[in-house]
């Protein structure tokens, strides 16, 4: 049962990857990456049950968070072409 689900999710991942590679506009690619991330989370959760060690779901949780943060960064880059702003008039020194 879990095996079937895992294979199904893998097939969906392949489909999403094709859209990612082919995607004409950058927004298609961002969509593909978002869907790919969610499907990976599902794959890890299903595999946890498949291998009989369901207590590894922290990894799936981390994937969700990282997927969200990477997505916000990509979208912000697609829209504003920089990640730092908004820059109020405040200067600082790093060194």
């Amino acid at each position, binding site marked *: 049962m879990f095996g079937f689900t895992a294979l199904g999710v893998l097939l969906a991942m392949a489909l999403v990857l094709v859209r990612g590679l082919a995607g004409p506009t950058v927004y298609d690619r961002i969509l593909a990456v978002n869907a790919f991330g969610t499907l990976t989370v599902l794959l890890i959760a299903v595999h946890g049950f498949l*291998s*009989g*060690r369901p*207590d*590894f779901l922290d990894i799936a949780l981390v994937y969700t968070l990282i997927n969200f943060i990477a997505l916000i960064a990509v979208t912000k880059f697609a829209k504003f072409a920089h990640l730092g702003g908004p820059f109020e008039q405040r200067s600082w020194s790093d060194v």
Partner: protein
Amino acid sequence: MDFPGLFNYWIVIALMMIGFYIVISQGNLVKKIFGLNIFQVSVFVFYISMGKVEGGTAPILAPGFATYTNPIPSVLILTAIVVGVATMAVGLALVVRIRDAFGSIEDDEIAKLEGDVT
């Protein structure tokens, strides 16, 4: 029903060679850095796949499990991943500085610009 024999290693070697090819052939500096990342991640996949034991579960002791996959490749790769990210961070910082100094991040353009200022 894992495919026995060395077929898995050959795919991993193919991955390594794709990464290695990207590093050598591509002219864009950012693409070189990410090609290097691909090459390193494939070497790590090679390490972890040699630690896998048939039917062994993750190396965290739990009741009811006897065989465990080998923990040592995981330890080595934890170190190597951090080294990879550290190199990537310094590499990307250098790319930004090169862009400021030379105005381009293409290998051939920079080589031309480098030549004239002797």
